[in-house]
Every structure is written in structure tokens, then in C-alpha cells.
């Protein structure tokens, strides 16, 4: 894997306006996660949350290649996957706040968000579950619309049976499946190297699936690799695999301060913050810094309004839970 140079040069971004849209989406995801965290600390978000901060380039880069007929299966660290697909951030926030106006009426919560209207099959709370769901979606898409199914999962899922079984199944049936491993270096609290034998990419290569390890902090590197992978899958050639090297800027879940990280590691990764990298690149391409500042302020205002609306929204009635018939 060649890491993207941190010295911006011109002519790197193929479509500056498109990347401005991606930049806005990345700001939205980061701000959304900061908001969820602050609401969590105030007791307004319940249970647990797994934040996507630091990994924004992966979901936004991949989503920028997807069509209406495609489908995505996300992980329980899935707010970014959902927002990258265009899920209404207000409805997503309201779901975190457990309100009736949530995207799933308060039934799902942070780990189980779904919105097929936005192409999101679901977020899956079992490590590797997203791979299973996307494999099945790929089976159906191959027989219907010709769409591609994408599974996001972490380095932890590489050691689940779902990965081996589904990749083999998809390869022998030549299913239109894109597997995106977000290697954020830790499975829960444990460094992936200490629990993972060999190289992640090699596990796909042994099944003769095209596989790339890429700089997951660079959204244009993600977008370029995703374009190759989606073209392979859409062309009827079977699954493709991407290992995106990335880092979560927060602990595994809300109760984890990340004390197991070596000193200086977080700071080193933050120097390669995907939002900072993209901003520098946009400026190198000639985008006025003031325009980017305005974008940041607009997203911040939007989030503040969302917070107020969300906190004013009603909770679901107890009756709604009792009415469910299986």
C-alpha cells in the first residue's frame, strides 16, 4: 500500500465540486458523532454508541460510487455509513435520542439502524453480520437489477466464520459483492495484530478475489479503489475486497477511554485526519479557504438546529410496543 502523500499537489481530485460535497458529508458525520457523544454524556442517548470519528473517508468515498440499485450493509459503528448514503440526519439523531420521530421509530437505536429507502439494509450488531446480509443482497441483485451489494466491517470480522464462508460463497457464485474491511487497528480493545494471523488482504487473495490495501484516511484513495472494485463486481466478475487502513479517534464504545493505546499513537493518526487532508487538498486545487469555512459553519448551524428539534421530539407511546405482532 502506498500511503497518499501529505504534501498536496494540484490535479489530484477528478471533480472538485463532487469532493466539496464529500467534504460537507464528512463534516456532517464528524459533527454528528460529536453531538451524539455530548448528548450521551447528558443522558439523552441511551445504552451504548460506537462512533465513526476518524473513519469518514471510507464511507463517503465508497458511497460516492454507488447507484440507486445498490445496497449497503453497515456495522454497529454505522452512523457514518448511514449518513454517507443520505439518511436524513435529523431522523438518525432522533433515533439515537429514542424518539418516535427516529428513522426506525425508536425501535432500533444506534446499533440497529436501517433504511432501505436510502439503500441501507441495516446496521448489524454482530461482528461479521454485515457480510452475511450483503452476500444475500448480492444474490438477489445478481438475479434482478444488476446492483452491487457493499458490506462494511472491521478488522475484527476477519476472524469470524462469516468472512470466509461468505467470500467463498460469493466467489463461486460470482456475486456482485464489495467487501470493505475498515481496519481501524483495534477489535474492541485489542490490537488486531495480536489476534490476527497473517495479512488481512491475503485472505481474500487466496480465493482469487481482487484485493487492495489502501490509505483509508484519504477519501480520493478510497474513491479510486472503490471505483475499481465496483466496476469488477458490477461487471459480473464476482466479489472484490478492499482493506482501508484507518483509525477511530475515539474508544470502541462510549465506556471506553482507549487507555490501551500506546502513547502518541492517536496523535500521529490525527495528523492524518481525513477531513484535514481533504481540506488541504481542496485548497491546493484552488478552492477558497473562506468557502470551506462557510461550509463548516453551515454544518455546525445545521447540527445545532437538529439537536434542538431532536430534544423537543416526542418519545414513542408505550402502546406502540404492545401492538407488535410477530
Amino acid at each position, binding site marked *: 500500500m502506498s500511503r497518499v502523500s501529505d504534501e498536496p499537489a494540484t490535479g489530484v481530485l477528478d471533480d472538485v465540486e463532487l469532493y466539496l460535497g464529500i467534504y460537507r458529508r464528512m463534516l456532517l458525520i464528524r459533527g454528528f458523532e460529536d453531538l451524539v457523544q455530548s448528548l450521551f454524556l447528558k443522558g439523552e442517548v441511551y445504552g451504548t454508541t460506537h462512533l465513526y470519528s476518524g473513519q469518514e473517508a471510507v464511507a463517503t468515498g465508497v458511497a460516492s460510487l454507488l447507484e440507486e440499485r445498490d445496497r449497503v450493509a453497515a456495522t454497529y459503528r454505522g452512523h457514518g455509513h448511514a449518513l454517507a448514503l443520505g439518511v436524513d440526519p435529523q431522523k438518525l439523531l432522533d433515533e439515537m435520542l429514542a424518539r418516535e420521530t427516529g428513522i426506525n421509530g425508536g425501535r432500533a437505536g444506534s446499533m440497529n439502524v436501517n433504511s432501505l429507502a436510502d439503500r441501507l439494509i441495516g446496521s448489524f450488531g454482530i461482528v461479521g453480520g454485515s*457480510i452475511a446480509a450483503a452476500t444475500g443482497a448480492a444474490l438477489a441483485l445478481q*438475479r*434482478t437489477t444488476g446492483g452491487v451489494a457493499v458490506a462494511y466491517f472491521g478488522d475484527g470480522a476477519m476472524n469470524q466464520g462469516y468472512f470466509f464462508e461468505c467470500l467463498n460463497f460469493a466467489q463461486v457464485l460470482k456475486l456482485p459483492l464489495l467487501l470493505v474491511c475498515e481496519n481501524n487497528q483495534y477489535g474492541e480493545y485489542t490490537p488486531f495484530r495480536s489476534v490476527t494471523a497473517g495479512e488481512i488482504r491475503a485472505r481474500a487473495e487466496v480465493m482469487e478475489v481482487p484485493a487492495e490495501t489502501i490509505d483509508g484516511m484519504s477519501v480520493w484513495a478510497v474513491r479510486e479503489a472503490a471505483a475499481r472494485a465496483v466496476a469488477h463486481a458490477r461487471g459480473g466478475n464476482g466479489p472484490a475486497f478492499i482493506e482501508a487502513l484507518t483509525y477511530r479517534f475515539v474508544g470502541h464504545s462510549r465506556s471506553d477511554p482507549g487507555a490501551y493505546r500506546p502513547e502518541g499513537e492517536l496523535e500521529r493518526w490525527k495528523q492524518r485526519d481525513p477531513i484535514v487532508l481533504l481540506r488541504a487538498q481542496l485548497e491546493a486545487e484552488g478552492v477558497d479557504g473562506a468557502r470551506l469555512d462557510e461550509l463548516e459553519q453551515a454544518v455546525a448551524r445545521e447540527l445545532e438546529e437538529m439537536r434542538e428539534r431532536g430534544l423537543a421530539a416526542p418519545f414513542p407511546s408505550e402502546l406502540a410496543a404492545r401492538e407488535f405482532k410477530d
Partner: protein
Amino acid sequence: MPTLDFRSAIREALDEELAADERVILFGEDIAVAGGVFATTTGLYEKYGAERVFDTPISELALAGAAFGSAVTGLRPVLEVMFGDFLGLAMDSLVNQSTKYWFLTEEQVSVPLTIRSVVGAGGRFGAIHSQMPVSWFMGVPGLKIVGPSTPADAKALLKASIRDDNPVLFFEHKRLYGNQGEVDATPARLGEAAVVREGTDVTIATAMKSVHDALEAAEALAADRVLAEVIDLRTLRPLDLETVVASVRKTNRLAVVEEGPVTGGWAGEVLASVTEDALGYLDDAWRIATPNTPIPYSPPLEDAFLPGPARIAAEIRRRLR
């Protein structure tokens, strides 16, 4: 009415549903080219082609996931899991994905999948190819569990299962495949029990192979002027309690015969529910199930393990004395 064996009734149901709806697909291990290890899918691959009927790797995790993902993306998958004992491998996707989705989508997106699986003891298959996994799944909201006892029900209930819009586990008892019976075109509804023999002295509620054992026991009891009513539950989740309670109001006694370990089984669920609804009508109620041990291989051991007709008749005689 044509007479068919149970195996052919299953095959006819699959054939008719594949023909009726192009969204129906059928997959599993050895089910296409080889026609299924229990020969329930013979000829379907030749008739419908590899797009609709296909062989898979031995990968139950992937298969259960493929069923879920394809069901929420426009298809109506029918998955064969060769032996019910293998359902442990399929359990995560079935329990944590398929049965949750209707609820999590606020009843907007259904999951029309059917998992067929061969279950039950008496075939000398030993501890891990003979189990009755109903009780593994009884506490899973969002799941239906169907277990037919006759060729007519096998066909009608499998068709209803495939047409159902949410997950159905369809159990085929391996010792019923050779049974013959009349099969008509009457559709069936899931969740409805049937009174298969009328009587006034005791109600026997049961399912699958044990229905035949209960009927044999009822015949033997009739010679002693004990009139047993036999109910074929047909669907174990949801249970048709109305039919059982109506019978108990007449007979005042209930024996629930379950092929499966007595602890944590569905027979206990039937007893609990009937007790809650109709305690005042009950003079006696008990379970006739298998011991809390794994299933033995040797024929004398396995035969003693199962609640066969002789044990059912003997227990009823003793309790009615």
C-alpha cells in the same frame, strides 16, 4: 384424490411454488444436481435452472445470511439445511437478522424466507443427526415453526410457508418421508391445529411423527374403552391454543407428547398456556417427552428413548386409573 408419499408431497410443493412465483429460489447442499440427500428436490434443477435452484458450499453461516439478505432484496428464498442439527450454525443470521427485521423496520419490510430442515430420531443416525431443534427456537419472537405429519399437510403447509411474508422454519421428520397419504389441492393456514381423532376422555396434543404414535396409542386405548382425542398441532410457533383448550374443556385431561427433551420443551409451553387459560377444566395434565439425554445410536436404546405408542398408551392408562 391422488396418493403421494410425504417426500413427493414436499417436492410437489416446491415445484408448484417455483412455478407460481419467479421470486422463489431454492438452494442448499446437494439439492440441485444430486436432487437432495433425502431426494426431496429431484428434477427441480433440471426444470428451473441454476438461477433458481442451486448447490452451495457447506457453509450454513453464509447460507442463512444469503437467505436473509436476498429476502430483504426482493426474492423469496427457500433454504434447505440438510439436518436440523446443523441449525446451530445458521442460528445467528436467522435469530439476529431475519427474525428482528420486521420489528426493526416498524413492520415495513418483511423477510419472506423459509428454511426447510430434516429432523427427528428413530433413524439410527445418533446424537447429532437426530435432534428435534424446535425448543432451540421457541423463544424467538418473529419466527414461525411448522412441522407436518402427513403428505397432505407437508404439501399444503410448505406452500403456505413459502407464501408467508416472514421467516418460517419448516421441519420434515425423517421417519415420515415414506408415509403415503391422499393429497388434495386444499391450501392450509399456518398456526392452525387439527383434531385428527375425536374422543372424550383425554386429549393428546402432539406433532410430526408422534401424531402417528398417538393415533396408534388411541386405537389401543379404545379397546379398553378409553376414548382419546388426538390433536395434530401442525404449527408449533405460534401454537393454536384455542383448539387445544376447546378439546380440554371436553376431556378435562391433557397429555402433550413431544419428541424432544422434557426440560425446556414446547410441551411445557402448551401445558403452561392451557393451565393459564383453562385451569378450572383440568383434572390432569402432563408431558410425555424424551429424557434429558443425548440421543443414543443402538436400536434398543433409541427405541426406549422415544415416546412411542406403547409408552403413550401405558402412561394414559396409569394416569386415568
